[in-house]
């Protein structure tokens, strides 16, 4: 918590922040998974 606050105040970016900026999580085109009827 304190670490997060300090990072925000001093605008410090650690490796994780930099990686998140450089490599955003992609948004995929998705489809419904077929429902398997096991009856």
């Amino acid at each position, binding site marked *: 918590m304190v670490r997060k606050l300090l990072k925000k105040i001093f605008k410090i970016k650690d490796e994780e922040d930099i990686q998140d*900026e*450089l*490599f*955003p*999580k*992609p*948004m*995929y*085109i*998705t*489809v*419904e*998974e077929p429902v398997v009827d096991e009856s």
Partner: protein
Amino acid sequence: MKPQILKQDDIKKLLPENIDNLFFSDADYSMFSERFLTREGFNGFKKWLTFCGIDNRGGQNQYWKRNYDCDNLAESFKTYMNLLHARANPLTFTESFKSGKHNDTTAQGVAVGVIYFEIKAKKTSSHHAINIAITRGLRNELVPIFIEPNAAGKIKLTKKERESIWYVNF
């Protein structure tokens, strides 16, 4: 919901006919949303280029350099989007088998390719490389979109330009 997977033939149906050089380096492909390709992903791409020392110099050139020109930018965009796909699905087959965990998708690649086409002026003609991506349009139909990786993002090609495409590599 899970990522949709396209086969090579699904992509072929969406391309202009009679392209002389059509290459697929993967067996199947997932797709990114248009919003991601043109906004969050595109912004990440520009930051990544800058991180690599390829700066936006503004003016007409933007990220273009004599030794890092349109083909390099288009290849980079394709590679970058595949990097994001690989990072989002980090488990190898063996890791997945041993742990019982699964990646979001088994698709080998993401449907982003490089194209070359002809730009004709009155007396001259030149060739240009940009990106093509398969995604879903406003009516939820599969569509190819064209992306200028040199800072512009999504662009439209004229009918003549689309017909002049002579190289596609997914």
